[in-house]
């Protein structure tokens, strides 16, 4: 397939759809109409003042200049770009769900019940004993989890300073550990990107607060030695943190809790199909084993245990406190609940099966090498002596989005590909064609690519060299 993306071009000005500010601004004298003394106010405010029809056109046009899961395949490895069921939007739009977080528990029993229900769903799916919904994204979940681990160690009088992380892990793991005040111990991987058990054994010790791990790993391989790994960490007094980004591969087939993980986050915007919204909002609920439950953030929803039917939001005994100003990304959590309820046990297991089948089928159809396997829901193909980023740009012309490129680093010119379960065979073939044509194209063609997207190849270096981050900055030029 060939895809020409929509363009609305002003050739004279060398731009596509103008900025709203370029369509007309208005300056309002704030003090003119202000009920406040002048010294408490700004003088004026200058902003675009489009009419509603103009607003509608502006954003409709912008939207047409944007790729999305509803326009075609989006196989970003480790991102799990699934179809976002439309009905979950309707559920989340219920006006009765639009409540303020400071409402009394008694007055929001419906909201609390849904929270509780989702906590239970997630605990079951992850094999965890308790879940908090508060973290607003995966990385925030990581921080929550590591802070819980820290609180746990502190409570037990242990002053541990290190978090062990495999080299192939996601950047957030490292950044999280550092934010929580830990030193990062980077663990070399074995030839398959798996944890090198010997190296782990050597790295882990009495300073080890936790090992952060995702499973399957970032090239889609299951950590077969997970039981041994868990023992090593636990024996040293450390905790096991599970990065839930790849959970889609395991739904109904394996649970982090059963593998020995003590704390984990769920990326509901990956595994549970809540929309990614062009970069968020997501939600990163955190599950913990029984021993860690008392450290969960506040508030935490539980059933009322005094004989009355109902739910309450309480502060766990040794709560780490807050990781979000309120209760997290509520509108996202509703959608996750609806998605899980829609699939049920069988649907969840089937999602994993088809995600894995799709990845394997696609790998089979492409001409690139896939050095590591057997993989599950994603695979890291290598572009070999081609530049993976260039290959990706070329793929943009074929009605598909390219995979994650140049990550993880252990695979040369990696193209980390995760089609997810929602693609049918015909769109997998479209993907394969895009891979193969781009991979076979000449360097010149690749360098010129893409040629059918709204923008042609963008000069990223100059964007960083001379940052222009607002229309004000453009005006100043």
């Amino acid at each position: 397939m060939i895809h020409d993306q929509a363009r609305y071009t002003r050739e004279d000005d060398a731009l596509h759809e103008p900025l709203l500010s370029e369509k007309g601004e208005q300056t309002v004298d704030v003090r003119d109409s202000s009920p406040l003394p002048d010294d408490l106010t700004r003088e004026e405010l200058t902003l675009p003042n489009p009419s509603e029809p103009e607003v509608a056109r502006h954003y409709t046009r912008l939207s047409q200049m944007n790729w999305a899961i509803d326009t075609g395949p989006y196989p970003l490895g480790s991102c799990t770009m699934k179809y976002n069921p439309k009905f979950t939007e309707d559920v989340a739009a219920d006006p009765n769900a639009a409540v303020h977080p400071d409402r009394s528990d008694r007055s929001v029993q419906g909201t609390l019940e849904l929270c509780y229900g989702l906590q239970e769903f997630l605990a079951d799916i992850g094999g965890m004993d308790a879940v908090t919904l508060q973290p607003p994204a995966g990385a925030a979940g990581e921080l929550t989890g590591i802070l819980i681990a820290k609180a746990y160690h502190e409570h037990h009088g242990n002053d541990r300073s290190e978090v062990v992380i495999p080299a192939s892990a996601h950047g957030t793991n490292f950044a999280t550990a550092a934010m929580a005040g830990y030193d990062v111990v980077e663990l070399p991987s074995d030839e398959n990107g798996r944890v090198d058990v010997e190296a782990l054994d050597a790295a882990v010790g009495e300073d080890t607060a936790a090992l952060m791990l995702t499973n399957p790993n970032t090239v889609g391989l299951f950590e077969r030695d997970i039981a041994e790994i868990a023992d090593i960490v636990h024996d040293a007094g450390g905790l096991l943190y599970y990065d839930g980004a790849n959970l889609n591969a395991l739904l109904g087939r394996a649970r982090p809790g059963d593998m020995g993980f003590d704390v984990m986050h769920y990326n509901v915007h990956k595994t549970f199909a809540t929309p990614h919204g062009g970069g968020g909002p997501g939600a990163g609920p955190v599950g913990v084993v029984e021993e860690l439950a008392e450290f969960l953030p506040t508030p935490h929803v539980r059933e009322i245990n005094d004989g009355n039917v109902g739910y309450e939001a309480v502060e766990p005994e040794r709560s780490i406190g807050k990781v979000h100003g309120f209760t997290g990304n509520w509108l996202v959590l509703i959608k996750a609940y609806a998605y899980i309820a829609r699939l049920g046990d069988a649907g969840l297991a089937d999602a994993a099966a088809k995600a894995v089948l799709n990845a394997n089928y696609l790998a089979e159809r492409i001409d690139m090498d896939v050095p590591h396997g057997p993989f599950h829901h994603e695979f890291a193909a290598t572009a070999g002596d081609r530049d993976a980023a260039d290959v990706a740009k070329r793929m943009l012309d074929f009605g598909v989005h390219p995979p994650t490129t140049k990550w993880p680093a252990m695979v040369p010119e990696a193209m980390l590909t995760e089609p997810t379960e929602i693609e049918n065979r015909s769109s997998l073939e479209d993907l394969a064609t895009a891979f193969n044509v781009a991979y076979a194209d000449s360097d010149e063609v690749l360098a010129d690519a893409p040629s059918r997207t709204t923008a042609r190849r963008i000069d990223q270096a100059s964007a960083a060299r001379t940052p222009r981050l607002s229309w004000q900055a453009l005006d100043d030029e």
Partner: protein
Amino acid sequence: MSGSPYAPHTATETAEMLEAVGVADEEALFDIPEDVAFDGEFGIEPRTEREIRAECARLFARNDDLVEFLGRGHYSHYVPSVVDHLADRAEFITSYTQYQPEITQGFLQALFEYQSLLVELTGLPVANCSMYDAATALAEAATLADRVRSTSGDVVLIPEHLREGKRGVLENYCAGADLTVESYPMDDGNADVDALADRVGEDVVMVYAENPTVRGCIEERLAEIGEVAAEADALFTLGSDVVALSVLEEPASVGADVVVGEAGALGLPAAYGMGLGVFACKDDYLRQVPGRLVGASEDAEGTRAYTLTLQTREQHIRKERATSNICTNQAWVALRAAIHAATLGPDGLVELAHDCVRDAEALAADLDALSGVAAPVHDRHHLREFAVRTDQPAAAIAGDLEAEGFAVHVIGEHLIEVCVTDLNADRTDALVEAFEEVL
């Protein structure tokens, strides 16, 4: 057994694909050792979408139908219908982060415009394209202060009147950076600038103030706070929200180094605390900013194009030396705020903010006229919300008000807080009556 309704495979297709892969069944593709395999059940019954819609509607209907006079950091204004219709367009909401800018110009431009809106509102030249919420934005400001301050020090000074949850998040982020959070006193609802000046010194990395405060008071000596902070080489971080910023003193003009706060006051309905964190700062700190930045550039044809930029600050490149661990953010909420702001225009924004001043003043006066009630507690100008002193215990009054159909904050034994916006302005008379009823 039914499969995922969103996995499109027909039985034939599955069979053919399995054959192409060279395995007998799907199970053969899983490389999971038996000792960690799961063969239990979650016990989650699949339901139809109609059933789930009905179930959730029933659930939410269990929430009491209260008129909320609630704020304290989570503000709702009427969101024009066009915001929903545009933001819900699939190309926006079902899109990922813009890793391939050539094919995601639309969202990038929208985020660029959102950043520009914040630049105008704050007067600061740099704004990222979102943090999770005001609390995490404040916390990130503290760690930024820690990174950029030339001299060492470990104290973050915050106002005594601050939302509990915000302080909680700040403390959690500060702990990892070995920072300590300490509060400075208030003077009748405003920062006690003299006490603050006495406290500030070498050990202070950041001074935080809010305008308006969590009690809705408009700060009257902001520029002085800025000076106090500057003298100690501490960063001055100002907290606010996008509606307030439309009319209150421009942060840059009072010396703010960083502005954090809530932008979800635009675009988001009451969302049980879901937010949109503002993060804007001076140019000096550009390379220390957490989160995503969209910049303008050109494409190979010389046409203006937008792209995520300065990514070397971020976790996926800098790993443990990143400016933050944030990855997924609140991009779509930022889009909503931008659309809402565009729909209002500057006149609409200013009018909205001014109404928030007028309506709060009027409601306070009405409540003050009741016996057993004094409002506002602080002799300041207010925006949206204000504290109310009650002779009787505040909790009892709030409970009785709830029975009458109104929700207010209890913020002290004899202190209630009340927030009025365009959404409940037509119910203030009813609230006053209810107060009269329950006193």
